[in-house]
């Protein structure tokens, strides 16, 4: 299942990157994220790992994620190393009005047919989190 939301915010990409470029700050503005703790030392970079949890329905799902793209100040992507299969991506693109921000979450719940049902039923919850996260980002920037 892929969830994607896009907003144009007034701030410049470099300003937004201060929040987006540090996954440890995600619980502060990403809706539903209860935890995002560094598992590797040093600053955020490609290869850095974090323990991320997202509250979806009755469970906090997630696991260890690894940053696989870190292109300041326009692209940050991660993949799940443990837990459910997931990918996430921030895209920042400068526009005359400020920055077009895209947040994309792709996930797959194991379990065959029931996994697909869970995917579909979780989608509105995850989409709500993504929408609220972009709204929070707009307020913070």
């Amino acid at each position: 299942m892929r969830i994607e939301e896009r907003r144009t915010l007034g701030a410049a990409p470099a300003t937004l990157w201060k929040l987006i470029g540090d996954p440890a700050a995600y619980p502060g503005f990403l809706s539903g994220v209860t935890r995002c703790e560094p598992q590797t030392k040093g600053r955020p970079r490609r290869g850095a790992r974090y323990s991320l949890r997202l509250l979806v329905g009755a469970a906090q799902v997630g696991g260890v994620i690894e940053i696989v793209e870190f292109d300041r100040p326009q692209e940050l992507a991660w993949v799940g190393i443990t837990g459910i299969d997931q990918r996430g991506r921030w895209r920042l693109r400068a526009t005359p009005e400020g920055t077009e921000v895209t947040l994309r979450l792709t996930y797959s719940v194991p379990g065959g047919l029931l996994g697909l049902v869970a995917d579909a039923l979780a989608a509105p919850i995850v989409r709500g989190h993504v929408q609220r996260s972009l709204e929070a980002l707009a307020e913070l920037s």
Partner: protein
Amino acid sequence: MSVGEFLKERLAALLPDPAEDLRDPDYIRDSLALGWLIATFYFRADVRGIENIPADGPVLLVGNHSGGNVTPDSFVLGLAFNTYFGVERPFYQLAHDLVMLMPQVQWLRRMGMVGASPGTAERLLDRGAAVLVYPGGDWEVHRPTWKSASVDFAGRKGFLRLALDRKVPIVPVVGIGGQETALFLSRGEGLARFLRLDKLLRLKVLPISVAPPWGLNIGDFVGHIPLPAKITVSVLKPVDLHRKFGPHPDLEKSYNHITRLMQRELDRLAAERRLPLLG
């Protein structure tokens, strides 16, 4: 050989080897979707404080138990544990012999259920596992519905000896809602004594409840369909008995401390509930 001894021997032969480890992380992973669907949409589960469980190492989770022989609180906690820490972290649940005889036991054993026989929990903790135990067991799980908001371990202190012996922290886990998944009328302890179930099966109770699909349900031996009560589970902060009470903690004081902590939390959760079933 008396009839009682014969029956005891036959039932013992039916029990699977409690020490056998059938936990299968891949199987658990494939079951998460079903678990999440049931927990989210049927029980509207709310799990709080799961992050209080130490991130690694052996730990003894001690819960109050509800829901008869179908226990939604342990199901919800299992889902929460496996999604939060990942199925890679070993997590086992100790169960009474009677549960090991139930039809769905093979499924439960693959989820990490093991028989509560002497030595099993010690071996699992020594391997670094998280182990869930319900000291109140059959006594607590079949308490009447109107005693839903009371922790009742019946004075059982084996879990304390286990934690002290293995020097592992205790994490109290408090659940509410399970006792609303059927109308539990009586533990039937007098009936159990009359039928000598305490001698034959270590059973102190022969519970009487009203539950679908049976209507009047005596024994709950094959379980029932639980009503969709809202399940709330609260995981408290770890308790290190040695740090709290010194090198040789008194069992009575430790027991009172743990049960008091749990009762206080259960009172708080009960005060939040407005309507039966709906929560």
